[in-house]
């Protein structure tokens, strides 16, 4: 039972991060019908920028309560700028091109960002400093620490703010309108280029927050960290039904839970034949299984014909 509870907590923490990143994928997909392959690298850049700002301020007199928010805003600002530029350079010129063309530029952007990060920050793992004392709490036999608690709470907060933004504001209405029908949105006087830019920037801001969460949780930052995380988050978005915000959140949390519970129990389930090293395969197997029975994901309703 303790193991179950522990894996549940781990899964929730990991799932919150997946959900935040998956939201970035799903927002872009909802509006442009495009897999933004470079989104995982944005997470990595967010983590790197936060690390750099923290390291720059660590020696100074600033207390941690100031350092962390400043680093957070630096990362968010850098990522928003990056998201905006990616859209401007690699996707906007190709908006009416064959649909695989922007996928290839997205892959190109991803490779460029990864390589640049490797050149700038090197191949080694960087330690992410611990700013606050990280206390562990006992929770029915399982352990949860402050960072993990903060991740879950912040993720919930950010996601509710996003839902409010999309459903309760003028901008959110404009976003939904562009997603529904671009031409009609133009006729209604919506500046769709602006809305698309803002969507990319919002997604990138979420990615920056997710990047800091991952680094704080594991304590390391690496130029390659965005790749697998992005892949998993995209999987989560598809699991929930891509283009659907609630689906991305549900998919993210579910994927986190599946992974951690799968890793915890796969050994006993298969009689010791498969160990936790099959964790990644497990996530994908579940995805395939779900899609066979619900071809547009758990909450997805309709996917237009567009092979």
């Amino acid at each position, binding site marked *: 039972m303790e193991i179950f509870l522990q894996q549940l907590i781990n899964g929730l923490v990991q799932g919150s991060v997946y959900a935040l990143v998956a939201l970035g994928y799903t927002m872009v997909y909802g509006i442009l019908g495009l897999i933004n392959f470079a989104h995982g690298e944005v997470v990595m850049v967010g983590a790197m920028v936060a690390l750099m700002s923290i390291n720059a301020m660590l020696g100074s007199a600033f207390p941690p309560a100031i350092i962390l928010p400043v680093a957070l805003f630096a990362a968010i600002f850098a990522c928003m700028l990056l998201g905006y530029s990616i859209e401007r350079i690699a996707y906007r010129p*190709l908006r009416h091109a*064959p649909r695989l063309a922007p996928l290839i*530029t997205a892959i*190109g952007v991803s490779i460029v960002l990864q390589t640049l990060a490797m050149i700038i920050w090197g191949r080694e793992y960087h330690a992410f400093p611990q700013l606050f004392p990280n206390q562990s709490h006992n929770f029915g036999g399982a352990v949860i620490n402050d960072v993990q608690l903060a991740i879950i709470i912040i993720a919930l907060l950010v996601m509710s703010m996003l839902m409010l933004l999309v459903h309760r504001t003028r901008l959110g209405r404009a976003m939904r309108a562009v997603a529904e029908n671009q031409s009609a949105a133009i006729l209604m006087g919506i500046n769709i280029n602006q809305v698309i830019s803002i969507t990319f920037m919002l997604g990138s801001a979420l990615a920056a927050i997710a990047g800091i969460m991952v680094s704080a949780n594991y304590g390391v930052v690496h130029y390659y960290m965005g790749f697998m995380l992005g892949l998993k988050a995209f999987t989560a978005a598809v699991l929930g039904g891509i283009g659907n915000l609630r689906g991305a959140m549900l998919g993210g949390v579910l994927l986190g839970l599946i992974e951690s519970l799968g890793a915890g129990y796969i050994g006993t389930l298969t009689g010791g034949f498969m160990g936790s090293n099959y964790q990644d395969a497990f996530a994908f197997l579940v995805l*395939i299984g779900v899609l066979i029975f619900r*071809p547009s994901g758990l909450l997805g309703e309709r*996917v237009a014909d567009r092979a």
Partner: protein
Amino acid sequence: MHKLLRNRKLHLGGTTLALLVLPFVTDLLFGRGWVRIEDFALLYIMLALGLNIVVGFAGLLDLGYVAFFAVGAYTYALLASPQLGLHLPFWIILPAGALLAGFFGALLGAPTLKLRGDYLAIVTLGFGEIIRIFLNNLNAPVNITNGAQGISQVDAMRIGDFSLGRNQELFGFAIPSVHLHYYLFLLFTLLVIFVTARLQDSRIGRAWVAIREDEVAAEAMGINTRNIKLLAFVMGASFGGISGGLFAGFQGFVSPESFSLMESIMILCMVVLGGMGNIAGVVLGGIILVVLPEVFRNGAGPLQQWLFGKVFIDPESMRMLMFGVALIVVMLWRPAGLWPSTRRQRELEATGDAAEQDTVYDSGR
């Protein structure tokens, strides 16, 4: 007419001669390493042509194609190495690998081909990762694939005493092993080109295009879309299996590392960059994406030395950086690929406003 025909023959003869002497000329001018790169270019061209059937002809986005390459390679490695103590001849293993890869294609395709567009893409991606993870971990409790270390000492391809694994004397000529592989791969590549070209012009090929353009309309015309899509999948997979077998025999060593997601993406880039659906374009894409990075790798260091008197960025990083930039620039400059099929070109000109209307979105949020 006569002149045209003679020109054509001349062309064909010239191309054949050029392809035949290519390894010797490269060897002489650039060194043996480049002949090896040519061998790999041929392997990748085969892979790209196989994927082109799935992505280019049938319009199904496959992001895990390298899984079939892996199946072919591991089939060869397991049946012709000390790993299981088997040493079967390659003319049995290659077809076996192709069949097995085709079987895996059917296994993946049968339940998932009803998925649309990007849902299929992520499922194939997941499948590719699953295969790689299994290859990586199937060394315990029973050692089958030898895990991350991979399988080494894989037998070279040979017929009787004539082994491609070592240099051979022919008519008093010493022909190195890489050159021999080049000719074998060239033969297979030409075969693959021939088969795909004939497929494209066949009933099946037209059915693929019909499905790609409009699946509902194709179904209304009486095409069994499920079977035809499955056929594309299986066909592409078996081509991947063949090149996998050739790869294993050539390399003498296989490990899961060679079959990462990045490889799948690389092959997809060859198809799209070259010109999806156009065989000549795909061949061009394969050549460019194998040769260009090598040029960057070898040229980046000396160029920096010459320009700035110092090497700022190590050649390996430079290679990846230039590769990424090249992908972006080429796609921005020619969104339909370097050498698109005429049909694609027409489509691109025709869409314009139409593309604006069909955004994918579900009203769920």
